[in-house]
């Protein structure tokens, strides 16, 4: 589904991603871990199409097509979803209008008719239950005045509404209590199927108690320096990142 080959990314003449390789197949869950500043968010943003980063080398194929030449909205329509580490507040744009536009753009892309107002509200209700999000939140402007936890749940809610094929979740678990964590994990697990895949970027292995990854990768200084199974996460939890750094630098 996703093939990243020797990807290099710069911002302000500083190289952040320094030759990264990763393949994600349909049905898989990948976890990416790594110390702060290693480039996890940069990778996620480049995959979603943020143009402030400059790709200086490498290739990304998504379903066999060049992902990097597509606009962010095109990527989204083709099933890519990014759960933001820091979701953006958009004053004055209502959650309902925002999501309705997004859902109907997606439907248009798939050749489906736009949802009627009542069908859309019904869908919202169902998905809201799934993420246990407060009803009042969807009556507000996008993320405006949401608490940190609410913002994260809202990302999962949007993911549930948009039903992506490839979900990239950037530290959606950070700052969440155990209950919220379960909800986030539940959202990801609900989406899991033979046709979909997820990349879960996390700092803590505790999320991986709920989302069982097929692969765990360590991103350090712009490269995936180590890959393994679920056990690697446990090892990192126990021993920290120091040994990885030493290994990588030697």
């Amino acid at each position, binding site marked *: 589904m996703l093939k990243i080959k020797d990807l290099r990314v710069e911002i302000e003449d500083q190289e952040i991603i320094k030759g990264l390789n990763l393949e994600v197949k349909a049905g898989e869950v990948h976890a990416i871990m790594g110390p702060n500043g290693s480039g996890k968010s940069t990778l996620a943003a480049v995959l979603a199409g943020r143009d402030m980063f400059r790709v200086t080398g490498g290739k990304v194929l998504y379903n066999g097509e060049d992902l990097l030449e597509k606009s*962010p*909205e095109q*990527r989204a329509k083709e099933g890519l979803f990014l759960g933001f580490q820091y979701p953006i507040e958009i004053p004055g744009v209502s959650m309902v209008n*925002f999501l309705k536009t997004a859902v109907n753009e997606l439907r248009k892309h798939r050749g489906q008719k736009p949802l009627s107002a009542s069908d859309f509200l019904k869908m919202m209700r169902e998905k809201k239950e799934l993420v246990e999000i407060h009803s009042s939140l969807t009556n507000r402007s996008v993320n405006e005045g949401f608490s940190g936890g609410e913002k994260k749940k809202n990302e999962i809610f949007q993911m549930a509404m948009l039903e992506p094929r490839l979900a990239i979740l950037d530290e959606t678990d950070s700052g969440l209590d155990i209950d919220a964590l379960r909800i986030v994990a539940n959202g990801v697990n609900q989406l899991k199927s033979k046709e979909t895949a997820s990349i879960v970027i996390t700092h803590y292995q505790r999320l991986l108690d709920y989302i069982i990854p097929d692969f765990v990768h360590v991103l350090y200084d712009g490269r995936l320096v180590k890959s393994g199974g679920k056990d690697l996460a446990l090892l990192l939890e126990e021993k920290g990142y120091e040994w990885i750094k030493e290994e990588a630098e030697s």
Partner: protein
Amino acid sequence: MSAVKDKKDIKGDFITIFRENRDRIDSGSAPLMNRFRGEALEHFRQLGLPSDKSEDYRYARIESLFDKDLAHSFSVNKVSFNILDIFNCDIPDLDTNLILLVNGKYYNPKKPLIELEGGIIAGSMAEAAAKMPDLVGKYYNSMAGESDDGLVAMNTAFSQDGVFIYMPEGAVLKKPLQVVNIMIHETDLMAQHRSLIIAEENSSAKLVVCDHTLSASSFLTNSVTEIHAAAGANFSLSKIQNEHNGSAQISHTFIKQKKESSVFTNTISLHGGFIRNNISARLDEEGCENNALGLYLTDKKQYIDNFVRIDHAMPGCQSNQLFKGVLDDQASGSFNGIILVRENAQKTNAYQANNNILLTDDARINSRPQLEIYADDVKCSHGSTVGQLDDNALFYMRSRGIPEREARLMMMYAFAYEVIGRIDVKPLRKRIDDLVNKRLRGELSRCNNCAMNCG
């Protein structure tokens, strides 16, 4: 008709035009209005046109607007077609009382004044001045006459007609009144209408004014409106400016408020090459509330200039200025908001905000708050921002599949909605909402119909 020929001496030309046409000007108006002309002309002679050196007209290049041959329609309107045929205003949900001004003159010879519920009278300014000189004489030119703006003096000297509204004590108008200003002429034309609104104690009414151009000639409008709100009166004025970009308009609105009265103005500027709006309110007794709102959505080479002055002359009043604008292409403009709190105007609450979004590097806005506060127990705030659309928010929306253009529109609309949302007539709010949406989408080019029926 006569034309301005000499481009160098605009002031001298106007004085000549006045002399040559004095009889026609007088005969097309009312004795009460004519009485003020001589003095106003003298005043104009002293003041001249505001130059760009004038503090209050720093960015507005007024003189350049007069740098062309402009006809004046001093005689009765000779419109060779039935204006009501082209102007077919069917208003489904907004049920208004409709008044037409054509080239600055009241257009409905059969009914120059109409009487509405509660004894409210609306119609032609000239007719009201002729029929009710005592009532009109108490108010006419009482504020405008004190202005030191040469354009206001010019209006008083030249204006023959406009809109008159009288709301007797306790009268409540349920349907909003709608005034449609139509400019239509084969050659370039100048119009100077003059309006007077008298809201007596505890009366209440809402007025919607739409400005349109129905022919492609250049137009220049220099209009003056005086609004008197007596104790407890409640008056709301929504202006929708939608002339073509070859036209220029300067509007002067004077407001005087008595005890616990409330006045709301909302100025929505969509199309129009040059727009200058002066709003000057004096809160003259305790407990008044004034809300001055504005929204401008401009592009190409449009120029928009709002100049607001709120004078807190007495204690315990509240005022709120909120002007927001989105400027595209090479559009430029200025916002100038003055809050004056006089020495004894304690317990004043005065707020002002001007927020701008510039969509290109060439768009320009000068935002200038001016606070003059001479009392100590006051709450005042002002905020002025000039920025772009938030890139992070744009990316967030696009990452959900919303096309860039749509995302931009949604954000601009969200920005504008703060103003639209405060329009208190619901069907009017819906219509303006629609207009703004169309304007942002570039679908509102030229509107041959009244704003309430656009689209």
